[in-house]
């Protein structure tokens, strides 16, 4: 299976233009920094090294990983950690439908695990089926490798560093998520809903157990539901 993917990779590589490949490379580099900071933060926060490493291999979703580990490190329950992670990852459901065409037939079970924000964004940018398939697999395999290696290195470094805050690593994760999500905020309805949700979560943080404020942020959807109804009426 792996051999098949690797051999297929070479022909996929030639399908893409240099600009796309460069963009994928830049995203890999940025995610390497974030992965390393994830490993380091988890370990210096007191978790065993295997926790961030196993989590990265099996969950492979940066936002959910940071959310779950954040809840646990802040003293929240594992249940709250799992629920926060799962609610965040529910976005992968529509992603799966959006890129299902590149995942037909063989390789589907492996390919599904590689569905994530960055790869889906690159895939939807390509028009022809060959390009879509190529960028999905190249971005997916590259990011999976880069993410997991960097988490291992970060976890090892975390044991040596001790205090990751000295290096400002705690700013790396919000920075990359902000950069990633910024284009979605151009839609005014989405932006208002997100800001309301964030305000609710922020107000609740001093009073509620870790992980719960994040879920409360979904109240921001209330702003969005009337809009959806309007859209349906308009049609």
């Amino acid at each position: 299976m792996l051999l098949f993917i690797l051999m297929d990779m070479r022909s996929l590589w030639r399908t893409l233009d240099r600009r796309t490949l460069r963009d994928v490379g830049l995203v890999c580099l940025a995610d390497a920094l974030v992965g390393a900071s994830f490993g380091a933060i988890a370990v210096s926060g007191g978790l065993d090294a295997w926790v961030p490493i196993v989590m990265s291999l099996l969950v492979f979703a940066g936002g959910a990983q940071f959310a779950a580990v954040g809840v646990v490190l802040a003293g929240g329950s594992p249940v709250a950690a799992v629920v926060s992670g799962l609610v965040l990852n529910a976005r992968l459901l529509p992603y799966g439908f959006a890129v299902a065409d590149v995942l037909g037939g063989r390789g589907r079970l492996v390919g599904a695990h590689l569905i994530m924000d960055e790869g889906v964004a690159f895939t939807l940018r390509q028009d022809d089926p060959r390009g879509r398939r190529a960028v999905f697999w190249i971005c997916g395999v590259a990011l999976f490798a880069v993410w997991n290696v960097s988490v291992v290195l970060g976890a090892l470094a975390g044991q040596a560093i001790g205090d990751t805050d000295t290096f400002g690593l705690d700013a790396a994760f919000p920075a990359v998520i902000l950069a990633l999500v910024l284009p979605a905020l151009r839609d005014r309805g989405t932006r208002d809903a997100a800001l309301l949700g964030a305000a609710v979560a922020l107000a609740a943080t001093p009073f509620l157990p870790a992980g719960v404020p994040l879920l409360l942020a979904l109240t921001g959807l209330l702003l969005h539901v009337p809009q959806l109804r309007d859209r349906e009426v308009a049609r």
Partner: protein
Amino acid sequence: MPLLAILVLAAGTYAFRLAGPVFRNRLRLPERLELLLPVAATILLITLVVTSTLTEGHGFAGWARPLGVLVAGVLAVRRAPFPVIVIAAAATTAVLRLCGVE
């Protein structure tokens, strides 16, 4: 963090991922849900940015981290490359802390 929690999170996440490729020919997501899920994800991601920037435990995280993330936001609006954004955020925060800003 117990292994069981990681496994449950992993299994649920994989189910979300696999549903599209497996079921796309047999069923369609209700249109409303299809519109709502990306908005829900954006809300959660922005909230994650805001809370992980401003709070530590149940209190304020101090100024160094928010200022680092602010620099990242400005660079992102100006379409700087991702690695530059991440390094600038961490470096700003680290330098501020070095100067005694908490």
